[in-house]
């Protein structure tokens, strides 16, 4: 049973204790961001953290439980969005296993992959449950696209493709910065500590590559979007 082994690998006692802290990080940073009135959510930093250190299954669980607990204590509206959080954790975990969490520019790619996943998964939820309009600011973009004659699904999907990358790249970068600040001794207690081993190389070079990669990917995404909208 390879699947069960893969799932089991993610969970040791450190994982089980880290997940509640990670969920609390999601919730509290999410609230600080609201307090600072920043145009991002940053409410999955903890999820990405667990996904990298413990693996995709633990990441998926963290995301799912984040939404359930957000629903339990803050706002039950969060419940139906749990698949989005689940996939954010899952994809971040596989990106990390694939070595995409070892330097700044690779983390940007992880951020973009998470963003695309989130965009795709959240579209049907927004469409079928909320009729495309949710209580977030980005719904103005959806409304604008609807007004200019797009159908509902493509309007919601394009909105998500426009909004998600900035947030998820920032999320991945903050998670990366946190991991850089932890000691190797501490990280070594987690089941997939090898995911966080940083590649050698000058930081400034990496930063330039990171920016270049981000620009290229955003341009590609924009092109895809424009073609998609015809």
């Amino acid at each position, binding site marked *: 049973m390879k699947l069960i082994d893969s799932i089991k690998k993610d969970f040791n*006692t450190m994982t089980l204790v880290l997940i509640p*802290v990670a969920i609390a*990080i999601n919730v509290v940073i999410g609230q600080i961001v609201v307090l600072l009135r*920043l145009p991002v959510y940053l409410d999955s930093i903890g999820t990405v953290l667990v996904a990298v250190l413990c693996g995709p299954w633990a990441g998926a669980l963290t995301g799912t439980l984040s939404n359930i607990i957000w629903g339990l204590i803050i706002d*039950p*509206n969060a419940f139906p969005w749990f698949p989005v959080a689940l996939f954010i954790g899952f994809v971040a975990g596989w990106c990390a296993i694939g070595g995409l969490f070892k330097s700044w520019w690779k983390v940007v790619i992880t951020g973009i992959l998470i963003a695309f996943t989130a965009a795709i998964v959240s579209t049907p939820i927004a469409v079928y449950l909320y*009729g495309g*309009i949710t209580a977030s600011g980005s719904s103005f973009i959806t*409304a604008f696209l609807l007004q200019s004659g797009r159908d509902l699904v493509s309007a919601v999907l394009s909105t998500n493709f426009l909004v998600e990358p900035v947030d998820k790249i920032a999320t991945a970068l903050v998670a990366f910065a946190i991991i850089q600040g932890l000691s190797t001794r501490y990280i070594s207690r987690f089941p997939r500590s090898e995911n966080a081993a940083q590649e050698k190389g000058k930081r400034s070079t990496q930063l330039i590559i990171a920016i270049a990669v981000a620009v290229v990917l955003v341009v590609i995404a924009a092109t895809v979007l424009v073609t998609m909208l015809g």
Partner: protein
Amino acid sequence: MRNRLSFYIPRQSLIHDLNPLTKLALVFTFIIVAFSSSWYWLPTILFFFGLVPLSFIGKVGKAFLRTTFRLLLPLFIFLFVMQSLFYPGGVTPLLSLWIFSVKLEGVQFAYLTGTRILVMVSSFLVLLLTTHPSTLMSDLTRRGLPGALAYIITSTLQIIPQMQGKANTIIDAQRSRGLDTEGNLFKRAGALLPLVGPLVFGSLVDVEERAIAIEARAFNAPCKKTSLIEISDTGFETALRWFFLLLMLAAIGSRIWLS
């Protein structure tokens, strides 16, 4: 930021005494019926003639109405404004103002979506207001929910208010050192790291000791766990849950069959 463990209000009531799983089954029945029925007024009826009376039987009626209102008002305003103006299938204008016109279909759609969300959110509230999280988790663990999962959920419920408290302390401390949390976008973005850094690293460092502490208390012991809390469950409630299950299946079945 409000620091709160859960919505739970301790009272003596019929609803409080129900087995948590029965209440959970009730919640899902309400939600599934509300979302799968094609009858326009059903979610409204479920709310006013199902959930509101239940909340009053549970002696949490006031808190129920207040919380529902607080949680859903912003969403409803948004939903009605946006959908009545921009609903794609809108053809019948009710009133027009400049380039905007409110469409009947949009209003109807917003009402249906709104009442369904109302049922979803408020049925969970009935459960949460009358059930202590610890009781819910003990009962589910007894029925086979992995102990690790119950541990994660209950300990998250306790960590969040602690961390919110810490966050407030850090925000106050950094502000008194002159950190700008009110300025332009860049200043506010720059304020994020000094706030988040101490919070995150402080709580991550604790993880190792907490892992040691629960291991020292046989957390990973391979035997079947027992529970200190005794939770009542009756044959009547078991029958009730089967009934709810049938209702859910019927609702989903009718939805598939009719469409």
